[in-house]
């Protein structure tokens, strides 16, 4: 696997994510119907379809990710729209003008992504949200020390974090209305976050 992400890899990541959201539309919506309002898959699929349409040319990674952010903000709706939108917006800022990003920048990218979601949603780990996948992934990446190992570690951590939401009682988002009854269900947002991170790993490894 490459140790730096070119703009093409990032572009490929975004396209892969769009495919994954389309494939998992029903699955994510089903997860959301158990503890939410049965639209998360529809929202993410609608959003990433818009992302693909609005993707700019050129080799500016930051610009690419900012475009993702804008498309998600204006097309996902629900809670996930502003959350993922802010996530990409924050994380894209330091990458403006960059045509390739290495380990340090990607580690920063993960941290900024987490910070953006926390800022917008006023939530943290353990509340049965996307943060339960994002936070461990960001930490695992930085700990690994290289892009290739980091992405592998991030995927493992995100998947574990996603599964860890199952026994949790939600205290943020729609699932929190259910209190005790939100237990024993996997959080849809944590699941879509895992899928996004996995798509990044796949895009990077293909490039190798």
């Amino acid at each position, binding site marked *: 696997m490459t140790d730096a992400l070119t703009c093409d890899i990032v572009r490929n990541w975004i396209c892969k994510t769009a495919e994954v959201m389309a494939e998992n539309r029903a699955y994510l919506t089903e997860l959301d119907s158990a503890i939410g309002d049965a639209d998360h898959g529809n929202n993410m699929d609608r959003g990433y379809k818009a992302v693909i349409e609005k993707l700019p040319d050129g080799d500016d990674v930051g610009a690419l990710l900012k475009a993702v952010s804008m498309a998600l903000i*204006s097309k996902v709706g629900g809670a996930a729209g502003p959350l993922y939108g802010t996530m990409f917006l924050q994380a894209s800022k330091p990458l403006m003008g960059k045509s390739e990003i290495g380990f340090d920048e990607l580690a920063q990218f993960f941290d900024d992504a987490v910070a953006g979601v926390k800022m917008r949603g006023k939530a943290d780990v353990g509340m049965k949200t996307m943060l339960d996948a994002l936070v461990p992934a960001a930490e695992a990446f930085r700990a690994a020390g290289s892009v290739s190992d980091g992405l592998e570690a991030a995927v493992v951590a995100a998947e574990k974090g996603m599964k860890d939401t199952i026994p949790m009682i939600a205290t943020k988002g729609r699932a929190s209305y259910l209190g005790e009854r939100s237990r024993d269900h996997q959080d849809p947002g944590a699941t879509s976050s895992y899928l996004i991170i996995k798509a990044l790993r796949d895009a990077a490894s293909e490039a190798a």
Partner: protein
Amino acid sequence: MKKLINNAEDVVVEQLKGFGAAHPEIEVHIDPTFVNVAGGVKDRVAVMSGGGSGHEPLHGGFVGVGMLDAACPGPVFTSPTPDQMYEAGKAISGGKGILQIVKNYTGDVLNFQMAADMLRDEGIEVRNIIIDDDVALKDSLYTAGRRGLGTTVFAEKICGAASLEGYDLDQLAALCKKVNINGKSMGMALTPCMTPQNGTPSFELAEDEIEIGIGIHGEPGVERTKIKTADETAEILTRHILEDEAYTRKLSEWDPASGDWVDVELADITFAKGDEVIALVNGMGGTPVSELYTIYGKLAELTEAAGIKIVRNLVGNYITSLEMAGVSITLVKVDEELLRLYDAPVNTPALRWGC
């Protein structure tokens, strides 16, 4: 799935086109999606709201003279996006600022806040007031907080009238908060509903089960019980509302002074003997209005026994969940100011009197 629709993906657009055809005094915009009173607003505060579709007549049906100046419908049960609210705000802004009335769902709150920031960057003053009146949810520390239900209808009616009376943005924001802390609601469902996109029930309910404390997005309620009589059902909802204890929570609000979003602590009223209230018995969409009157009859009996006077009432479908069968009750304590503004003339597709 049995619905009068053409294209499940596009259902909001086809419905809005028909809405526009039926109500020429309202402008319908498709991309981004919003509706507004033709001509916009002159020299007063503009009042807008929005939220996921599927709750009709809320919000579009309340756009018109004396109520909302604009509404932003999202996809069915999914909150609209900031670009919609941004364009709607620019279309109606009359130079005196915009009041956004927002139901307390994470998605609605986050999207409206982003839109408020965008409009403010354009030099338009915006206040964003959250309605959270669902007493089915007891605490705000371990949940996203109480949801916005029927009190939203009264906030829109009363703030719309106040804007016509010349309230400025600060006064209007304060008034909207006043309606919110004086209003309490609770709902229940006999059946789930089905979004066009999914085509499957939002949750499963047995032939002899009902869901108490239901939300309006097909999300399950707080308790599932055996089916009850209309009187028992009305009593459960009414008691929760009348006996709801002082509810205190922090709500995010834009603070012009500090120029930032701040958490402001708010405390609801509790109902007491001698209070005058407006009552709403609201159908969830699939329940005949005749059944709502049985609920109203019991509600009137219980409020009277509690020494609370219903001075105005609405019985019908105002804030729905598609074809869900069920009912929600809302009581808003009113004083001279709130009652005067409620009685003021209104002319919208779904609420009309005095003109």
